[in-house]
């Protein structure tokens, strides 16, 4: 036991180090290099070229507006929803749980596409509707703007912001609020003078994480920003490597370095805020329930708003995609539209070898990638939670680092790394990149699973005559299964929908679903896109359901034996 432990920590540090530090180093070195083939010759030319680009100013400005705008909007919406759920008597509270989980199942690229289908200026369905039925000369809305990008990105980051703010709001000491009420302040005044300031760390953490997410976001900037020529840093980098005659990886790396630096700084800020938060938020063990504010007449109107948000987040994208996949071209739902419905696009997708290959590749990555990723996460979480040495602290920081990686930037780092290995342009390059970038999503649920396994549970098995291996099989693994299942589900859904890393690393033969959907969007093949998109959601859901049932079965068998 002791000996294997001693070898375990360093070897994990080496593996995770290669996964997370290598691409960063390669990105750094690559930014001082002429091009992919000329590694080793030092030049500052790429920095000069990329940072003296006159277009960069407006790109940075767009990025700032886009990231802060969407982060603020997402946080305000999350605060509104969290407050309603935890502190008022709003009806149907079950909806809030759904609202925070289900949107994660819809791939970002499809969510962005569904909004483009609704609100694009030439034939967006809502636009067509207003044009036809109100007799307007022009379409009233245009999603291909910065405002459009902010709206869609904010809706996508809303569940994450909600999951940070809601627990803080339900945990804090209500007597602080009550004393404000006793002092004569109104509900509203109390909310602004007491509740919000106390929740400040959680709110700032939500904003910070939302900024990091939108900085790394590629789906919205590419699907909604690029048609309107609204470029942000992520799409700027994409343009440098994916369009034109000669992709310039050196320049992409030079720009990427600042994005990465900003992202890592923000993540450190986030970590600091969440640790500060523990000091602020007074979680009490006294077990009182927060006083519920009676909304009276505002109850149903407010619920109406929540219902609309849920509809827009969960139902609308699916309906729009399915509708688009069965009508021949963009049209407002009507009798004519229904008479023209067919499976034409579905058949075209099934007959398209590249689409089928991407389906197969994504399935492989979702199953094999998530399984390998979880296997690695089990060992990392074990070392971080159970061994607790200085070395395991290093491992924890390393495995957390990739949380800050913007996919497209780190993809360029991996590109520099993989061209020098036989892995280049293979599915394994994508697999390694995915695991490295999404490692925290596996380590987190497993760490909390390990925290719950008190050391006495293992020790008592040893005293009862079970050896180390027997203890592992009968006590540790069965107790880990819930953590393994939720980690696997998280990783697998992330991998099936992965876009930003894949647009860099995917090569002919290693196409994946999200990239293929982006190609369809660029070519305006909305029908095929929607058909493939529905298949993607379906596949992802099937994987989740299978994982869920396997987990339930495994835990049940253990109970019955």
């Amino acid at each position, binding site marked *: 036991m002791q000996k294997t432990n001693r070898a375990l920590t360093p070897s994990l540090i080496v593996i995770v180090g290669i996964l997370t530090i290598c691409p960063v180093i390669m990105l750094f070195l690559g930014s001082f290099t002429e091009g992919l083939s000329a590694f080793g010759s030092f030049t500052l030319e790429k920095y000069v070229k990329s940072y003296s680009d006159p277009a960069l100013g407006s790109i940075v400005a767009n990025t700032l507006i886009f990231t802060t705008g969407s982060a603020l909007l997402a946080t305000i919406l999350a605060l509104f929803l969290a407050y309603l759920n935890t502190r008022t008597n709003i009806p149907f509270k079950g909806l809030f749980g759904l609202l925070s989980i289900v949107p994660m199942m819809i791939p970002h690229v499809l969510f962005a596409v569904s909004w483009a289908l609704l609100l694009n200026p030439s034939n967006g369905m809502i636009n067509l509707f207003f044009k036809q039925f109100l007799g307007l000369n022009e379409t009233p809305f245009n999603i291909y703007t910065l405002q459009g990008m902010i709206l869609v990105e904010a809706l996508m980051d809303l569940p994450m912001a909600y999951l940070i703010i809601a627990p803080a709001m339900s945990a804090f000491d209500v007597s602080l609020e009550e004393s404000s009420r006793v002092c004569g302040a109104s509900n509203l005044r109390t909310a602004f003078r007491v509740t919000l300031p106390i929740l400040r760390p959680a709110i700032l953490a939500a904003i910070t994480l939302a900024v990091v997410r939108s900085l790394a976001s590629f789906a919205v900037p590419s699907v909604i920003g690029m048609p309107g020529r609204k470029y942000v840093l992520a799409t700027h980098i994409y343009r440098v490597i994916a369009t034109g005659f000669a992709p310039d990886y050196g320049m992409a790396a030079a720009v990427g370095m600042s994005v990465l630096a900003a992202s890592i700084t923000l993540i450190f800020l986030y970590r600091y805020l969440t640790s500060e938060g523990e000091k602020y938020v007074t979680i009490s063990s006294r077990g009182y329930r927060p006083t519920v504010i009676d909304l009276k007449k505002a109850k149903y109107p407010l619920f109406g708003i929540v219902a609309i948000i849920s509809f827009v987040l969960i139902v609308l994208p699916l309906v729009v995609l399915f509708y688009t996949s069965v009508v021949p071209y963009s049209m407002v739902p009507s009798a004519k539209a229904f008479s023209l419905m067919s499976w034409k696009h579905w058949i075209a997708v099934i007959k398209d070898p590249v689409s089928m290959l991407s389906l197969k590749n994504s399935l492989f990555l979702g199953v094999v990638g998530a399984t390998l990723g979880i296997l690695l996460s089990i060992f990392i979480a074990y070392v971080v939670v159970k061994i607790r040495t200085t070395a395991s602290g290093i491992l924890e920081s390393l495995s957390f680092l990739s949380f800050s990686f913007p996919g497209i930037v780190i993809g360029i780092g991996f590109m520099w790394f993989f061209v020098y290995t036989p892995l280049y342009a293979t599915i394994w390059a994508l697999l390694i990149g995915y695991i490295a970038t999404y490692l925290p999503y596996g380590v987190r649920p497993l760490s909390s699973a390990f925290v719950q396994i*008190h050391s*006495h*549970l293992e*020790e*008592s*098995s*040893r*005293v*009862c*005559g*079970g*050896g180390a291996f*027997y203890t592992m099989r*009968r*006590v540790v693994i*069965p*107790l880990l299964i819930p953590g393994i299942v939720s980690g696997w589900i998280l990783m697998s859904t992330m991998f099936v929908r992965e876009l930003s890393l894949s647009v860099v690393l995917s090569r002919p033969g290693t196409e994946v679903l999200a990239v293929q959907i982006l190609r369809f969007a660029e070519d305006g093949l909305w029908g095929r896109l929607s058909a493939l998109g529905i298949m993607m959601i379906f596949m992802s859901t099937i994987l989740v359901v299978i994982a869920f049932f396997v987990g339930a079965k495994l*835990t049940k068998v*253990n*109970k019955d*034996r």
Partner: protein
Amino acid sequence: MEIRIRNLSKDYFSEGRKIAALDQVDLNIPANRIFTLLGPSGCGKTTLLRCIVGLETPDKGEIAIGEEIVFSREKNIYVPPEKRGLGMVFQTYAIWPHMNVLDNVAYPLQARKLPKEEIVDKVAKALRFVQLEGFEKRSATKLSGGQQQRVALARALVAEPKVILFDEPLSNLDAKLREETRKELRSFLSRLSITAVYVTHDQIEALSLSDTVAVMKNGRIVEMGTPWDIYFNSDQRFVADFIGRANIIEGKVKSAGEGFTIIDSAIGPIACQGKNEALPGRAVSVCIRPEFIKLLAGGQGKGQNIFWGHVESLLFVGNIYEGEIRIKNTSLSFQLEPTTKVKEGDEINLYFDPAHCSILFN
């Protein structure tokens, strides 16, 4: 089975400082008795228990259970916990939440690969012993604290271990249940003839459960004896102070001889039970427990061990009054019958029973 511990030491490092968790412990734990390790937190009692079980490895020394040496640094022997054939009840009970009562209790037998019929028999017997028949299919973690405790006990006993060890098993129960479970445990253990090692910081548990108590401090065993000896006849200030409520008065031996030894102290001369080491001139302390301070009726009396004091506080706690009394400049705790008419601020006459004034050496 007897446990023999020789010269056992273990250090650990905390914030760069070396702390001795066990400091050359020599101990014989008698066979088929209930033996308790008592001490404040951090005294090394749990470390000692975990070394016996094999969950921790000492730096030096030797441990033998019966005839078998299970650990020896010199002879390079380390028997892992699963091969030591012991039973243990953990502070958290360590009931496996993914198994029902039956599986929890059957586990030690399954791990030893016993035939199925034998497992069924033995589990039924163990569950009957702890009065949990009919609970087999229940989820173990859904039981009450006391029932979980009994599941843990059944699991520790089912494989008929050579020794059973308890690591503060009652500290997670509330006060009332703790008292009941203590009585139950005492009756379970006295019906078995088994060596039991019990670790606790609770002196009432230690006194009421054990045949022998060993008091630990800073990784050493400072005193060992029957509960009665430990409570009444301890020589050591630490032990007297730690167990029960005690008034400790500094002084010097004035005269020793036939009958009582007289100690000069800040409140005047005190007649105490004589001890051989208490030679005239030696600095000692006197221990007098509150229950042996008696109220004398009437005015200011004179005589041996009679003191005049001022009642500083009086708290009614139900069965008695707990009070503080000031004699000259020394404050002492004492107790009174709930029926007495004494009030705070009264001047009263007290008598210390010399048979219960014991001399302590620091």
